[in-house]
């Protein structure tokens, strides 16, 4: 690949994120946190990126995306138990099942947007939630699907165990690298431009000859598939699949996370949001039981005064120090300054 | 001056509708605002009322700048509105519609009884739900509602539309009466002749600009000019 090509695939913020996340297990304990937390952060970053693909890029508020995280987790466990105890097959199973169910839901709701879209996703997610909680024979009901194994990474000749949180983290990190690079590519590809155009003005896109419904369907399904991957990783991290993450509450919290981070205006918003949320939970949470209350209030203040979130504050800061984006161009973000 | 508009520019979203409109009305003066469909007459009224505030320019009413004021404050300062589509609340009775419009300002206040005198048909309509009124009946309610708000300036948008000739004459008489009470009227009309007949001065708008202004009598009498500007 020529240097220009490489530059198209990787950007400075992306490399910074690789550096930070790539070394995290080596310093996370030094700052008083623990490996499992890093693991959860990594998984939730992937999930939040998937959610933002809908919310931030396509303007489709999915208020029930937690359901797909859960479906991924269950599917991972069930494939492992019933099909083959192989990491790759189980991951594939999780992604495929989530994509199929996501595609089904998307077929129902892709002609909607705004509030109705949000409500349809809530309804669908609740239905999945109840099915998961009722279908005890398959999902383990309220107790969850237990004893999901962290299957070894099968490289044909060698096998790498991911039983330790440290090793599993690097599997998640690898997934993150692939997802981030792929998603960055995606949002700058024609497809990404079209979905973002749909967010800005879907009827115009239709009159340009694009099949809006199909694009919405595809991006929803894609987002679900990535959520399913995150769910599979989560199932491994937890060594179980539990119904709780499918609840409305968690679906809502991930929206909060994405928005506080600044998913509306930046690719990196969800990443910032997840870090903010998990740090706040572990640090603030130690000092006040009411930390979620403060988090919720922060969210309200953000919606009122700075819907662009942390990324928006960051951009304002940059603007204040006179670094207009025209000057240096390391990060051709979907920069919507002045758009909203 | 009762109302003084200086060079206002108004936008709907990003669409510019007024390109520097200026006009003025003295107390007790009746002014016609004429022009074809889409010329910006209604927008001018909406800008005065603060519903679509002017982005540039200045509007002065009764000695106060109201360019950016809230609509309800503008209304309380004494501007009444008779919108072209009547805007009667259909699920309320006529009596309630009128009651909602009542308020006190520093200008003359009107009683419901006086309304009955102007529109004799109004009295027996009082208990009716407005949904079931005919167009003309709605127009009477709309005008009465505006007057009950004790305005010093009434903005009338097509008041004669849908009214029987007799009632149009009543309306025009009311306009004359308002004038005699020192109340100013800005009259937007399609029926230029009847409007001009009661007006002191007239403005003609086109394409969001004032293209002519002058005494109403001049327009009424100068047939070629009238024909050129108004087609009649």
């Amino acid at each position: 690949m020529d240097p220009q090509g490489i530059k198209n695939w990787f950007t400075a913020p992306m490399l910074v994120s690789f550096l930070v996340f790539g070394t995290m297990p080596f310093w996370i304990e030094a700052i008083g946190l623990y490996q499992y937390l890093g693991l959860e952060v990594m998984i939730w970053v992937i999930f939040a990126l998937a959610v933002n693909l809908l919310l931030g890029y396509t303007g489709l508020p999915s208020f029930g995306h937690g359901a797909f995280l859960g479906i991924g987790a269950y599917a991972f466990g069930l494939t492992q138990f019933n099909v083959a105890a192989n990491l790759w097959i189980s991951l594939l199973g999780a992604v495929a099942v989530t994509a199929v169910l996501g595609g089904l839901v998307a077929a129902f709701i892709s002609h909607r947007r705004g509030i109705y879209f949000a409500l349809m996703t809530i309804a669908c997610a609740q239905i999945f939630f109840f099915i998961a909680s009722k279908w005890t024979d398959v999902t383990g009901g309220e107790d969850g699907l237990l004893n999901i194994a962290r299957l070894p990474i099968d490289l044909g000749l060698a096998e790498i165990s991911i039983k330790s949180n440290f090793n599993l983290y690097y599997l998640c990190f690898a997934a993150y690298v692939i997802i981030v690079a792929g998603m960055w590519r995606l949002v700058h590809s024609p497809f990404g431009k079209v979905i973002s155009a749909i967010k800005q003005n879907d009827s115009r896109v239709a009159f340009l000859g694009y099949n809006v419904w199909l694009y919405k369907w595809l991006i929803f399904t894609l987002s679900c598939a990535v959520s399913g991957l995150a769910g599979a990783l989560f199932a491994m991290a937890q060594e179980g699949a539990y119904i709780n993450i499918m609840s409305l509450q968690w679906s809502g919290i991930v929206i909060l996370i994405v928005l506080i981070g600044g998913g509306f205006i930046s690719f990196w918003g969800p990443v910032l949001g997840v870090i903010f949320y998990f740090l706040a939970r572990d640090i603030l949470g130690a000092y006040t039981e009411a930390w979620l209350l403060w988090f919720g209030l922060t969210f309200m203040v953000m919606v009122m005064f700075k819907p662009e979130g942390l990324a928006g504050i960051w951009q304002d800061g940059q603007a204040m120090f006179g670094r207009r984006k025209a000057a240096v161009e390391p990060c051709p973000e979907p920069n919507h300054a002045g758009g909203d | 001056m009762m109302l003084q508009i200086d060079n206002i520019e108004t936008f709907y979203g990003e669409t510019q509708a007024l390109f520097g409109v200026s006009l003025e009305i003295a107390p007790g003066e009746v002014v016609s605002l004429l022009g074809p469909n889409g010329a910006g007459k209604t927008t001018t009224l909406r800008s005065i009322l603060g519903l679509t505030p002017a982005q540039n320019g200045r509007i002065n009413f009764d000695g106060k700048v109201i360019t950016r004021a809230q609509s309800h404050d503008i209304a309380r300062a004494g501007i009444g509105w008779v919108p072209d589509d009547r805007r009667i609340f259909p699920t309320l009775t006529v009596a309630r519609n009128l009651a909602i419009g009542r308020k006190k300002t520093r200008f003359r206040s009107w009683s419901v009884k006086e309304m009955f005198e102007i529109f004799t048909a109004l009295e027996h309509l009082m208990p009716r739900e407005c949904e079931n009124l005919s167009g003309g009946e709605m127009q009477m309610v709309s005008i009465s509602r505006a007057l009950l708000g004790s305005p010093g300036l009434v903005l009338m948008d097509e008041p004669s539309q849908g009214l029987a000739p007799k009632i149009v004459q009543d309306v025009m008489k009311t306009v004359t009466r308002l004038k005699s009470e020192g109340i100013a009227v800005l009259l937007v009309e399609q029926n230029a002749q009847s409007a001009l007949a009661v007006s002191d001065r007239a403005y003609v708008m086109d394409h969001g600009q004032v293209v002519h202004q002058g005494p109403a009598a001049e327009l009424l009498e100068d047939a070629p000019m009238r024909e050129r500007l108004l087609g009649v």
Partner: protein
Amino acid sequence: MVDFFLGLLPHLLNGVALGLLFALLSLGFMLIIGVMEVINLAHGSLFALGAYFAVMLMGQDGGLPFAFMQAYYDLPAIPRYIIALIVAPALVAVVGMGLEICLRRTYGKDPLYGLLLTFGAALVLEEIIREIWGPAEYFLPLPKAIRGGFFFGDMIYSNYRIFAAVFAMAMIGLLWAFLNRTPYGAVIKAGAHDSEMVRVLGYNLSRLRLFVFAFGAALAAIAGIVMAPIWGVRPHVGVDAVIPAFVVIVLGGVGSFWGAVSAGLLVGMVVALTAAFLTEWSLLSMYLLLLVVVTFRSRGFAGKASALKA
């Protein structure tokens, strides 16, 4: 067959009581959508808050820690219940006003922002409840007169259900009279129909909105108090309340008073009957209903165009 229908009777009564309560709940929700075009996802939290305030005003262990209140707690249950029915909604109305002031920044923007803000508010209110009252379930103590059950024929009927149904009916009637027979109601209706004209008639729209939001919140609180003995009082009871409200509005149409009442009855009936015959799936029925309703009914409302439009 006759037995079957006789057996059905109490379930139907159940459905009616539930339905009337849903209607009461959704009328407040509708008022807010009608006047300010906001889907208030915090409506359920206001509902919960109403129930908690009532618990506080009814029972000693309801969270009022003030010793000087002892004299108040010595009052018989009925006056305390009546006080709770008045004071709790008033307190919730104040909370509603606070929320409306926050919402002002979202007016005129994409309705999604209002949705997100009220969503955040729902979370915050729930947390506040949890902080003050803790996570456990509370029970609203009731005066003896409206507790217990009685037998009619072979079946048992709950006194409270009948009280709730009658009370909800009375509230709906009062609300109707307020909206249709008083000048305040007329301004609200006018504002819901044409807020621009109302402004031009000299009404301060901000103040009207504030009042309507407070009023809607108080209605949510009343519904919460009456629903409390049926649903229990716990921090996240609000989620259970806001979904039926939405279903009712979508079914009945924004701005249609009797539409909301009849839709409320329908939803109540569906919930009661699924609980009777498909107990395991009773909690799901609401969401299935929402899905079906939104799929087939979202366009062509009975009522006016609004933020609900897709």
